[in-house]
């Protein structure tokens, strides 16, 4: 049981990473990752909404009539997105401005709606919370990583801090939409290659273990 819960939590970070493995939420991924801090803030906002909406939907799954479950989910998700917007506007106005229209668009983020429909609406509260956290962390890590690479190559800085004279040789294309696609595609290929490599090694070692046991 404990292992299952750990799997639920880590599933979204590596195996079913929403950005690199499931290729969900591509629009905000490409749009806001011109700077690492924007990616981190977007990821944090999505994690909060995922966690809260998953918990709420799991709690109300027996109360919400099946026919109107999608509108009910959207109302719940929109509520938490508006909460994030209000808090960000008050306390982090510069990030609120930087994320722009992609902040309210979290309401229709396919990761959140997919987890609500596929997981939270048919699982217990604790599992739904862990799933939301895992998926949120996975999304945050991916966006921050893409943001770091794009900012470093495109503006020569790291989280807004200029790195030596790197800014003089930076390649502007990486902070433009085309560079977003290039970085996203390259990182996706790298992550998938490494995941496949790890899975193959795991399979080989279990195969060897099986043969040894059979001999014994």
């Amino acid at each position, binding site marked *: 049981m404990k292992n299952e819960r750990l799997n639920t939590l880590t599933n979204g970070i590596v195996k079913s990473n929403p950005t690199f493995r499931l290729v969900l939420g591509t629009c905000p991924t490409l749009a806001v990752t011109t700077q690492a801090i924007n990616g981190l803030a977007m990821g944090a906002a999505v994690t909060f909404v995922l966690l809260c909406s998953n918990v709420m939907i799991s709690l109300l799954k027996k109360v919400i*009539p099946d026919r*109107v479950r999608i509108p*009910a989910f959207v109302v719940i998700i929109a509520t938490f997105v508006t909460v994030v917007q209000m808090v960000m506007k008050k306390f982090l106005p510069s990030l609120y401005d930087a994320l722009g229209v992609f902040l309210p668009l979290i309401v229709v983020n396919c990761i959140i709606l997919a987890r609500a429909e596929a997981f939270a609406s048919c699982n217990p509260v604790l599992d739904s919370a862990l799933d939301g956290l895992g998926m949120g962390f996975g999304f945050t890590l991916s966006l921050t990583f893409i943001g770091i690479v794009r*900012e470093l190559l495109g503006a020569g800085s790291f989280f807004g801090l200029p790195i030596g004279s790197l800014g003089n040789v930076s390649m502007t294309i990486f902070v433009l939409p085309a560079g977003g696609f290039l970085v996203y595609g390259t990182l996706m290929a790298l992550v998938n290659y490494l995941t496949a490599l790890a899975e193959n090694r795991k399979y080989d070692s279990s195969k060897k273990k099986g043969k040894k046991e059979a001999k014994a």
Partner: protein
Amino acid sequence: MRKSLGYEILMTALVLVIIAGIAGALLGLVNHFTAVDEDELIARKATAVYDGALEKFIGEEGMTAPMKEDSGEVLGVYVPKAEGKDVYVIVARGFGAYKGSLDLLVNITNGKIVKIAAYEANETPGLGSKALQEGYFERYYDQPITPQFKGFALVKRPAEMPDEVSAVTGASKSSTAVTNAVNAAVKWYQMRVLKGVNA
């Protein structure tokens, strides 16, 4: 059968109403603690260009009437709370930016621009953002604003005349919007302070 269908519809509507009601109450509560007073926010941000307490400029009748042109507009004007200072912090919007428009805070003291800062501007990092740095804003400083001054002219070469400002290479849209915003602030100062025209 009809009764059960009616009951089902009623219950469905009731559940949705309850969810929407709870959502509304939660948002009301959060709004109570996070509501942002726009005037207070501008006055707080304006401290980036003026070291001291500011308040919204009222002036004589008509002086705060909105000024809007195709290239830029003035959104608001703030003055020091302490009287007797010839300081105007103007919130100006310039059109033509990469993302439509950008807002600047322009401090005009004793007839000269002494400080400019970005108020709401999200130009592309490493590209358009170069036109929003202090080093670029300095090109507009210290030009005397007289009734005859016709505004800053953006040029795509090194500036030769005092009223010329050279655009940032690769960020001509952002440079244009910055110049438009500064010129809107300059025009407001000329029309409402130097000439006192209530137009």
